[in-house]
């Protein structure tokens, strides 16, 4: 009797299977176009570069290209790029969360919140060439702020050592798309913080900063880390903004690589593959760090 009872549900589960078997292969056909496209225009081109980084012109294996990355004229731009990306990503995260918290949690009118989210959607996409023009028009030699500073306050920004075509200038410019991106990503996460958590913490005697340190920030941590990695990659690969802002006078990696592909500067194309490979490695490392930290921070999630 127990046997019969045990068999019946299994019966039900297996009967449709023979009918589905031909579909088992068929259902992969549905995703084939996408997978082929992704392979041809995303994955293989990238792998191609990776392979090229380890090849001699006649196809043999070499580490010479990679070794070339450590020549000072290549290593230095890499270092500047890493610093630039790290600084803009960190500042973007920090300022972004402050602004998002001010609008979602700070008791400001609700209209401001919608306005800021819409504006962030625009500003995070207002990157590249036009953004550089906007900053040239503002902080460049004849820019609005530069002129006002000189004529109204008698302060010469140039005299103070400020130059838009510099690390600081690039940082200021990149933040214009980094901060809004952070706001867009972190606002839903802030909305996910339940009112009960704050009230429970308060009734248990916690101050506002204790609540943030012990509850809110740890809960937000995975989203924060993810955004940090994303902002890092976003800034590391940005070419157009830097290009339009500085011409090619500032040595950051994407600009070096751009010049290399155009064939203007470096003569050795295989060093170009190595540079591109180096870029993948660095954004890759940023993401691996992110994934590792995230799995550690997410023990309490399902």
């Amino acid at each position, binding site marked *: 009797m127990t046997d019969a009872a045990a068999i019946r549900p299994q019966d039900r589960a297996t009967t449709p299977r023979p009918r589905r078997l031909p579909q088992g292969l068929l259902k992969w056909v549905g995703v084939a176009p996408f997978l082929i496209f992704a392979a041809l225009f995303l994955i293989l081109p990238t792998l191609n570069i990776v392979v090229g980084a380890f090849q001699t012109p006649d196809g043999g294996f070499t580490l010479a290209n990679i070794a070339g990355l450590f020549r000072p004229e290549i290593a230095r731009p890499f270092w500047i790029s890493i610093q630039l990306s790290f600084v803009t990503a960190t500042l973007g995260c920090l300022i972004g969360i402050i602004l998002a918290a001010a609008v979602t949690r700070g008791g400001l009118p609700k209209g401001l919140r919608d306005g800021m989210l819409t504006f962030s959607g625009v500003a995070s996409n207002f990157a590249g060439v036009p953004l550089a023009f906007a900053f040239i028009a503002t902080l460049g030699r004849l820019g609005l702020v530069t002129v006002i500073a000189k004529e109204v306050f008698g302060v010469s920004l140039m005299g103070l050592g400020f130059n838009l075509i510099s690390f600081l200038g690039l940082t200021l410019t990149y933040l214009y798309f980094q901060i809004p991106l952070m706001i867009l990503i972190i606002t839903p996460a802030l909305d996910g913080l*339940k009112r*009960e*958590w704050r*009230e*429970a*913490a*308060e*009734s*248990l*005697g*916690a*101050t506002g900063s*204790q609540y943030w340190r*012990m*509850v809110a920030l*740890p*809960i937000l941590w995975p989203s924060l880390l993810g955004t940090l990695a994303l902002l890092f990659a976003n800034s590391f690969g940005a070419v157009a903004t830097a290009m339009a802002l500085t011409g090619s006078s500032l040595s950051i990696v994407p600009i070096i690589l751009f010049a290399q592909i155009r064939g203007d500067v470096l003569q050795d194309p295989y060093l170009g593959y190595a540079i591109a490979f180096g870029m993948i490695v660095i954004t890759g490392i940023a993401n691996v760090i992110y994934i590792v930290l995230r799995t550690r921070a997410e*023990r*309490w*999630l*399902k």
Partner: protein
Amino acid sequence: MSFLRLTHLEKTFGQNRVVKDFSLDVAKGEFISLLGPSGCGKTTVLRMVAGFETPTSGGITIDGQEVTGLKPNSRNIGMMFQAYALFPNLTVGENVAFGLKVKGVPRAARNARVAEMLKLIGLSDLIGRYPFQLSGGQQQRVALARALAPSPRVLLLDEPLSALDAKVRVSLRNEIRAIQKDLGITTIFVTHDQEEAMSISDRIVVMNAGIADQVGSPFEIYNRPTTKFVANFVGTLNTFDAKVADGRQLVIAGQTLNLPMGTALPPKGSAMAIALRPEALRLGRSEGYEAVMPATVEEVQFMGSVIRLRADVAGSKVSLDTFNRADHPPPAIGERVEISISGKDVIVLNA
């Protein structure tokens, strides 16, 4: 001597007065329920005691200390919320330790207290789990332990059972009551579930539209409701039209009822409404039940130990509860029966 005293509390949100002139004295160790439909202001009263809302006027004192202007984190109050209020990033042990940690209690003392609390709620072996690994009932027990760990002066419960399924609800409410009695902690419990309030409280405050309609023990509230709202909100009620006759007598459907001494009645000859609980109606004739009315059975609900009948008495529907008896099947639908009532069970409703 009252431990928690609320005096003339008022709360206005914009144009909306949600709590009106609410006063209540709670003795130390007492378990008080605020009962009412949603939007009656019961949660607002609780949140004012916790400090999450500031009263528009009126005052709150705990153990002689004026706390009205105090921030929530300096009131030393424990609170339990509807659901999902555990910190999801902390383990059970860390959740319970939270209040002690922010107070700066040293680790050893903290761990001892956490162990004690978890033992109290019977979840000692779950100390390392995260909230998502617990059932709803377990989560709420941990929330109770967390609220109690810093030894609060008052425990506030904001519908802590409403998100749980029926069985867990009953067992957890008994557990809460047992722990509350054990610790002797003054407790305010907000609920919209009258059965819950009845079974657990020393006293109940029935609230309606921001006003405390009646304050009393569950027995008083159920048997001697003072307003129509309380009578209708708590339990089921049958209402009858009656006419005042001589002295303490009422005439209902041509029959006379003798009311108990001291019942205030309108002048002779005026019409009034009286009410009776379903269990005050008897099936058939019974000694001491002076009025007998013919009725037609319309519905029979067998609920186990009790059988509820719905019957038609002269065009109006009444409910009647009778105990189940194995040797005595309930009447059939459509059967004509007699229902008798007694003056001593009559509830006279003021407005």
